[in-house]
């Protein structure tokens, strides 16, 4: 069949093939044979944050994780407070929050959502190459500082909502890391605060990353520092940080966002100009930090739909707060009620056309009961592709400032935030700021012209003249009554601040934490228990006695 030569050649070819096969068996030892990659996921070992692009992706990853906290922040902060209540439509998760009976499966109290933000921040902080210089700027510092800020805020939320947190700075990338860190001690807020302050303090002058111009997505470190100091009773440092933030970034309370009734022949009419609403618009001048909420299909943002489905409602207490105020045109020309109510809540059946996203809520014309829902949420969701929750805004900044300076023994200065507005006229008026409260401390410096248009927070919903009521003379309406002790005045003003927070920042998420802070400061659990339990009808006493125990303020994990 074959001649010898052919057989020889064939054998030669075969030998080569055999060698090839044997060589391939030898490849067993070759490590690469079992290594795989993927086009959909990025392995940790391949992901190095060495370029601004990588950092932007990481930063957006952090923002996307932060989005999950937006619903929780608001619902935990408000449903546990006195201003927002459940309805017959409420789902079980909301009821649990309302009843301080939060189960482990509650969608809005998943501690993992918080640690997910922290771990992603840790990864960025740990790996970012801050030395990168582009156009002569160390651009990466902006991401670095922003991540530290978000991380600090998230840690505060964990400690305040869950009572304690496990503090770690290196990213968890393996089960072993996870188990090790899970055994770390549980730190209380105060134990955590020092670490957080030390961690963010050096970065307070770094600018926010300029990823989405016009939308403040980053928590200013000064605000965070202010809050941390305020919680730990370091009032002077708190006041200083708040003041510096006001000054450096021009955060003001001015008439731009003032709402008022139209006057017909100097008589208060039924028509109004609604500008105050814009003060909590995420794109407005007074928004300091907000969380952009997901609008992408497949990612959930519940607050908007819960609101439109009437799964919660402003409490009777919240309505009463506004209704019991008096709107002043002049001292003698008044109507009852606070305009801010009309811009905070709305009857569900009148809102249908304003609802974004064509989400239809079946209105039942036969049902005539008023179903009030929160207008603030709708307002910030008015653009189809942009929904957001404002975490920090000017009013909150000024009220926190007031809280700090009040505790520094300056109740009149604090009171001026509510009534007069912090500007040079106010500061120079001895009627408003008595001599004993004056000092040269930097946080008291409002002489700069930028503050000239500052008005009292109340004046934007309770009448344009309120703040102008002749600060040089003083008046008899809305004043601090004479007290024997300074501490009495301080407590009185602190109550006013607390009430003002309810009028001004209702439903924005900070309520329960504000009440907690004041109650802890006064070491008086009943302070919180009394205010919160006012909301309940059937089980008022049960809730009250539950809240008399401080550990019940926290979510059990």
């Amino acid at each position, binding site marked *: 069949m074959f001649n010898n030569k052919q057989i020889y050649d064939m054998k030669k070819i*075969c030998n080569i093939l055999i060698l090839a096969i044997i060589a*391939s068996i030898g490849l*067993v030892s070759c490590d690469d044979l079992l*290594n795989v990659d993927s086009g959909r996921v990025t392995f940790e070992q391949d992901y190095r944050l060495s370029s601004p692009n990588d950092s932007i992706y990481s930063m957006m990853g952090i923002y*996307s994780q932060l989005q999950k906290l937006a619903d929780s922040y608001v619902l935990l902060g408000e449903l546990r407070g006195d201003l927002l209540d459940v309805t017959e439509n409420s789902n079980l998760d909301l009821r649990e929050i309302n009843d301080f009976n939060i189960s482990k499966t509650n969608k809005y109290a998943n501690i993992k959502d918080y640690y997910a933000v922290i771990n992603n921040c840790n990864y960025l902080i740990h790996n970012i190459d801050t030395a990168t210089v582009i156009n002569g700027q160390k651009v990466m510092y902006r991401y670095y500082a922003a991540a530290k800020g978000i991380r600090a805020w998230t840690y505060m939320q964990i400690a305040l909502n869950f009572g304690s947190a496990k503090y770690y700075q290196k990213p968890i990338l393996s089960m072993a890391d996870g188990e090790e860190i899970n055994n770390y001690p549980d730190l209380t807020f105060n134990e955590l605060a020092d670490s957080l302050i030390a961690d963010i303090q050096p970065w307070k002058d770094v600018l926010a990353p300029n990823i989405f111009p016009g939308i403040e997505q980053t928590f200013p470190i000064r605000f965070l520092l202010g809050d941390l100091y305020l919680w730990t009773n370091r009032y002077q440092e708190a006041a200083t940080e708040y003041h510096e933030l006001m000054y450096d970034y021009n955060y003001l309370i001015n008439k731009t966002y003032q709402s008022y009734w139209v006057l017909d022949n100097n008589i208060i009419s039924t028509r109004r100009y609604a500008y105050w609403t814009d003060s909590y618009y995420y794109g407005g001048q007074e928004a300091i930090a907000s969380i952009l909420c997901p609008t*992408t*299909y497949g990612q959930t943002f519940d607050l908007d739909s819960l609101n439109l489905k009437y799964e919660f409602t402003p409490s009777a207490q919240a309505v009463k707060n506004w209704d019991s105020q008096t709107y002043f045109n002049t001292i003698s020309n008044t109507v009852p009620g606070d305009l801010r109510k009309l811009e905070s809540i709305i009857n569900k059946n009148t809102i249908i056309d304003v609802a974004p996203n064509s989400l239809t809520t079946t209105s039942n014309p036969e049902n005539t009961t008023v179903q009030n829902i929160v207008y603030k949420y709708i307002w910030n969701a008015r653009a189809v592709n942009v929904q957001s929750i404002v975490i920090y805004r000017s009013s909150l900044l000024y009220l926190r400032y007031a809280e700090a300076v009040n505790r520094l023994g300056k109740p009149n200065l604090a009171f001026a935030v509510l009534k007069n507005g912090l500007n040079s006229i106010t500061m120079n008026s001895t009627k408003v700021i008595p001599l004993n409260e004056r000092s040269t401390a930097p946080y008291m410096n409002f002489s700069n012209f930028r503050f000239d248009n500052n008005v009292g927070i109340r004046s934007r919903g309770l009448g344009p003249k309120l703040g102008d009521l002749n600060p040089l003379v003083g008046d008899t309406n809305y004043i601090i009554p004479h007290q024997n002790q300074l501490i009495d005045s301080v407590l009185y003003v602190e109550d006013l601040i607390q009430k003002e927070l309810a009028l001004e920042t209702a439903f924005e998420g900070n309520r329960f934490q504000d009440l907690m802070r004041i109650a802890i400061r006064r070491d008086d659990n009943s302070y919180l228990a009394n205010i919160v339990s006012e909301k309940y009808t059937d089980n008022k006493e049960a809730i009250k006695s539950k809240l008399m125990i401080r550990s019940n303020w926290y979510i059990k994990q």
Partner: protein
Amino acid sequence: MKKFKNILKMDGPFSSYKYLCSMLACVFLLSAIAVRAENKVSGNKASKSVTGLVRDAHTKLPVNAAQITTLNNRSSATTNSSGIFTIDIASPEEVLMVSAYNYGNREIPVQNKDSLVIDLYSDVYSNYYQKIDVLTGTVNNSTLVPAAKAVTDFSQSVAVSADELIGTELGGDVRAISRSGVAGVGSSLFIRGYNSLNANAQPLFVVDGVIWNNLYDIKSLHAGFFSNPLNDINVTDIASITVMKDGTSIYGSKASNGVIIIKTKRGTGLVTKINLNVLRGVITQPTNIPVMNSDQFRVYESDMIGTSGIANNDISKFIFLQDDPTKSTYNTYHNNTKWLDEAYQTGISQSYSISANGGDEKALYYFSLGYTGVKGIVKTTDLQRINARFNADLKLSTFFTMGLNIGFANIDRQLVDDGVNNYTSPTWLSMIKAPFLSPYNFTATGSRTSEFAYSDELGTGNPLGIINYSNNSLKQYSFNISGVPTFHFSPNFTLSSQFDFSLNKTTEDYYSPMLYAAKQFIEGYGYSENTRMNQVMRNIGIFDDTRLSYKKQLDKNNQLNFLLGWRYLSNYYESDYIEGHNSGSNSSTTLPGSFNSAFSVVDGINNKTKSISNYANIDYNYKNLYFLSIATSVDGSSRFGNETIGGFSLFGHSWGVFPSINGAWLASSEKFMKNVNFINQLKLRAGYGITGNDGIEDYRTVAYFSTVRFYDKGNGIVLSNIANPQIQWETTKRANGGIDIGLLNERLSLSFDYFSGITQDLLTLKELPNVTGLGYNWSNEGKLSNKGFEFSANIKLLNLKSLKWELGFSAGHYVNEIISLPGAAYTTKVYGGEVLTEVGQPAAVFYGYKTNGVYATQAAALAENLKIQNQNGSFTNFGAGDVRFVDKPDANGIKDGIINANDKQIIGNPNPDLYGTINSKISFYKFTLSALFTYSYGNDVYNYQRSQLESGLDYSNQSTVMLSRWTSEGQNTLQPKIAYGDPMGNARFSDRWIEDGSYLKLKNLTLSYNLPLKSNFIEGINIWISANNLLTFTKYLGSDPEFSTRNSVLYQGIDNGLIPLSKSYYIGFKFSL
């Protein structure tokens, strides 16, 4: 070495059986060695010869020219015209293989006899004595060591895909459950119970030596459809299917669910043969649960409206309640449409294939072309499949041969959404759609048009509109090419390497039309009017299996075969998916096109998996009397972590070791069996092996980031998995003992296998610590066991001159039990029900409420005082006409009077007690009538479809059983009252929906006729007619008791109303040239 020991560790109660089986296997070996030693002493005894007579078993007439060979082929003989032969044998335990034209083969042990009388049976009977394909090559069935069954004759099969054959031919060895009535969709297959909970529990497919990706968890866009990879093979191309139940350790970490070996046909001889197969058939409309007609439904509907709390003045809005024939809307609402008849049609199945095989001494080839076309029983659905296959064996020299396999398939399908689906499944909508409506529009004056009506005001789409305007297709190409160069260093020493490249590409298009289908509310977004989806999947496999094989005949009694191999598999799976909603019109279906950009999803999968297996196998055979087989594989995979507990570490990877030992004793060849005449064949088998399951999610052992869409701004990168380098394979340790017996002159053959297996290191999702911020990752914890048996019997009942009747029976049984879990028991939600995973129970038992009828009177309800708690904390009592739920006592035996989650208990077990087949074959002259029954006994079914047809909670049409619903005080009935929204939860998941799914089904009945031909040109013509699913004996209330919604263990026994199997009739011709 410590780690290695860990693998072999004994496990509790299981160990004794395992120990026994290992010991048995060793005893075979030791006795063989002992006998061999004794043999040496006795020295070289002169070989002896045996004389015998070969005759027909019925006529007792001698058979001329029968071939007799000793089993190891060392000597052979032929009978003379008197049927007499004489043959030399090497040992008194020798076995003779006798074969003759028109007769089935037979093996006869000599048993030290001097003369033998051998009866041969017609080849009409099935034959045990054949060669079968196992993992290491081809062996005689009688010398097979592991538990395996093979089937080789599919000439009259109407099956579209191979798994249908497995169900009918090997139904006692594999629990094969037809997925649905869609052609070629195949079956879920379970060998020896459920060997996993959350990972792949489907067997490994090895087709012509190549591992196929079984795509068990790949989701189709089309609801209820599974793209079955076995559908790529034309059944007429299959030469054999072997089910390997144990002894699979050379496939190590892939083999714990058993291995199914499929061999396609190859060139067999020098004579060119051409085969032509033609098949045509009709598939009838299935029987469905009967639903109410127009009049019945109208009454039901007004009752339902009465419970809905709608104000009286609003009821006028329900136009269908108006009975005034003068109204223009009268005609629209006064039809009696049998929607099922509108949606279904008579299906047509046809299949043509032609094959040629032949060759010369240099090359043998097999070539085939096939076409299968099925017009589905639901309108517009179809299947078109074209197959081509080319297998060749080239003998380039005595030293070097080359095998070549090329396969190609093109599948084209039109589909509709299937199963219970209130929006887009036409078959389901046909059941719930109001029968008083028509598929067509009516004009303002009340005359019918030919336009399809839109979705109605009750929120139900028009099934015919959906059928006509949807566009759901699947196009699939699969191609593979293999080369197998083999070097024959000597007749006993070969090196071969099989290299294979395979490509499978599937494109799926989906469009559900607006207006004809009801709007779907999607939480958090809004209404979807129409949906467009598109998915392209690609699977590329590169496979290499290199084997060094050495056969050593130590002496005339001792034979050793070594096999050393190395296998590499690289699999790349990619899928790209896009979904859009609300394009605004049914003519605008291009993505993204005019689809709403805010409401679109782009997603995909991109998985690479690589695995390496180093394996060795040693077969030892003493005198064809004792057999021992030892196999081990050492496996690595990209899916394994590199610090696994069960493996050892080398080259930076973790490797698992999977050994097995199997032994067999052919006792019938022993000399002492000489006088036990009624036993013709007796083989005992025992084995113990460890195998693994590498069905782990890719990449979960390392930390990785994935992308998240942030807003409309861009993509963010988020840490989504942390490293767990301990993730490893699931380990199955299984012991097997078996016996094969031939009795009464081979009239009766029996086979029995008992197995006991433990699967440990179960892949379970474990919650990660809170501080990680992540949910779950896999961990290897938990253990389950499967114990059971397989039995088969075959009887040659009648053996007359021209009438021959053979009966066969097979049965499988297993008991699955969860032995341990990492955490507490948990439930999984499945189709409105729940299944429980709990230690001490089988996997996925149904977990719900028990019921005890319906309260006939208010007094009866009050007497029991059961209530539910409403969401706002208040209570509502059950009343007359409500279901009487069982209030389960708590741990202290106290009943709280409240029906809530605490009252749930186990209400059913989807595992059968027994499953298998019964077959009968009667041959009369040239006619053959064969019947095949399949059965399943003792399995519970959750009839989800019926639960929806008897829920009585909305405006959809219901089963006629609802006519007996409770309507008035004192009425004794089993159907509760209807109430809009079901406030009392009467329709909740309870034993009302659990049924006995036992059945006996005449799966196939075939009559065939061999044309008596005397032609040089045509070798044979066979004509046959066949019917499928002709009779089903069952108490099951659903359409058909055979269905499988998913491949996952947790989804077994749930009837979600997929298109049922229905009766079908075929006629076929087979020409052999």
